[in-house]
């Protein structure tokens, strides 16, 4: 009976073992492989890969890059205004988005919200997440006109979608004992939230906010391209006027800012726990 004894008894050699396949049914397994291969072949053979155009395009992009050297920081004032606006958009939308995401996350957390409220909260998050910020920015530019307001609204919605979703998931994973303890002392719903729930998700919320600021700074450059204000607009104009050296300066500026903000947010997220 004991495993030791059988091991010391005569050992049977040559028994077969192999890791069980990921998909047990061989028909499904080989069928899926075949379908993938056939699709890949079809996809590549029908896409119009025009080698001529590619070979023409390469020197053209080389020319653009050539024109971009050396980057021109002559219009530093314009660069600075654009950046300032981008930062304002990113900061305000992060603040608004993070503040609004807290109640929405509470609504969308299954363990602390009643079913109808939960569904409403999830719906808000799904709607906020379903479109890429560029598409949302196009809508808002059409609605409120060109400029930073459209950018702020866009990125606020974007922040709500992201922060509320992750915060809601964090709330769903809290240690329930602390909530029970607060209930047992006779605390109501809001007091239980403040004492039993929020302290547990606070570090995560700060980390998410820092990440979101970082992400909004990046996105604010993109939404600027469709007219929602900020440095993206400046970049678009520079390209439109074939000012490749100025455009390159803007790109360098964006890279520098992203590097700095990523460094800061990483440092902050590491510090809090």
């Amino acid at each position: 009976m004991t495993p030791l004894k059988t091991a010391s008894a005569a050992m049977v050699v040559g028994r077969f073992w192999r890791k069980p396949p990921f998909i047990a049914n061989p028909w499904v397994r080989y069928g899926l492989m075949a379908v993938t291969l056939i699709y890949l072949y079809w996809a590549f053979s029908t896409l119009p890969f025009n080698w001529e155009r590619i070979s023409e395009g390469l020197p053209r992009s080389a020319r653009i890059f050539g024109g971009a050297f050396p980057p021109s920081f002559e219009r530093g004032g314009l660069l600075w205004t654009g950046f300032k606006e981008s930062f304002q958009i990113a900061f305000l939308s992060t603040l608004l988005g993070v503040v609004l995401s807290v109640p929405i996350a509470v609504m969308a957390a299954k363990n602390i919200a009643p079913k109808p409220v939960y569904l409403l909260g999830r719906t808000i998050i799904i709607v906020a997440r379903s479109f890429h910020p560029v598409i949302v920015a196009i809508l808002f530019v059409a609605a409120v006109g060109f400029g930073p307001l459209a950018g702020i609204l866009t990125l606020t919605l974007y922040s709500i979608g992201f922060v509320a979703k992750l915060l809601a998931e964090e709330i769903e994973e809290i240690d329930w004992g602390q909530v029970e303890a607060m209930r047992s002392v006779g605390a109501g719903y809001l007091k239980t939230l403040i004492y039993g729930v929020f302290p547990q998700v606070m570090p995560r919320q700060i980390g998410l906010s820092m990440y979101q600021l970082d992400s909004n700074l990046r996105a604010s450059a993109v939404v600027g391209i469709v007219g929602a204000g900020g440095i993206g607009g400046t970049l678009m104009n520079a390209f439109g006027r074939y000012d490749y050296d100025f455009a390159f300066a803007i790109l360098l500026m964006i890279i520098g800012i992203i590097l700095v903000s990523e460094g800061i947010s990483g440092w902050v997220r590491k510090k809090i726990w």
Partner: protein
Amino acid sequence: MLEITNLEKRYGKNEAVLKGLNLSVEGSSVVSIVGASGAGKSTMLRCINRLVEPTSGSIKLNGNELVNLKGSELRHSRRRIGMIFQGFNLIDRLTVMENVLSGRLGYVSFFQALTRRFPQADIDRAFHLMERVGIAHYVNKRADQLSGGERQRVAVVRALMQEPEILLADEPTASLDPKTSQQIMSLLQSLASEMSLPVLINIHNVTQARMYTDRIVGMRHGQMIFDGAPKDFNQDALDAVYGGIASPDEDGVDSSDATGESQEVNA
């Protein structure tokens, strides 16, 4: 005085966890409730402060019916019932003082709770109780930096801050080492007599139940099968409570094992 009559609890359509339980606790007696895991000890305690909804029956604390209370009435009655948990259930990221003051959450306004501006009387009481159990020097330390025994003391003080009329302890020593768990048990015992507070303790360690409590209640399959003084809780009673269970918890099941453990501690 706590009076439980005909208490029944059933989860969904499963077999009832509590089957018509009757128990009354008077004065400042310390009552330990023993029984194997799944006997319904924890469910019973949680029915008293309604963390678990009883299916039927009645629970009266000093004459007030607790079953069927709703909303603010329920919260007001919970203020009078202190609870201590196996896992301490402190707010880990808050300071010891905030944890202690959270025992007053049922009494203070939302704004006071949010800004931590508790009434001076509460702060005085907090310091007094923390000094009583020996954790006053940790006021501004984060709760998760304390050792197990210290955290359970914070939890005890939090419960006492409620000015409770009864104290429930759900396996308060199960996460502690033997020496610390004895200290917590004797703390509960002396607090009960100092504040003339009835205390109900779920406990696995039969030796400690005998040593620190005035009365032992044995439960099995949702029913009370022993109720008497510790000296009457003999081998037969022990077998009745724990016997015939395939793999009971190791603590206090075998009486010789449990005594061995306490000897080790005393040595």
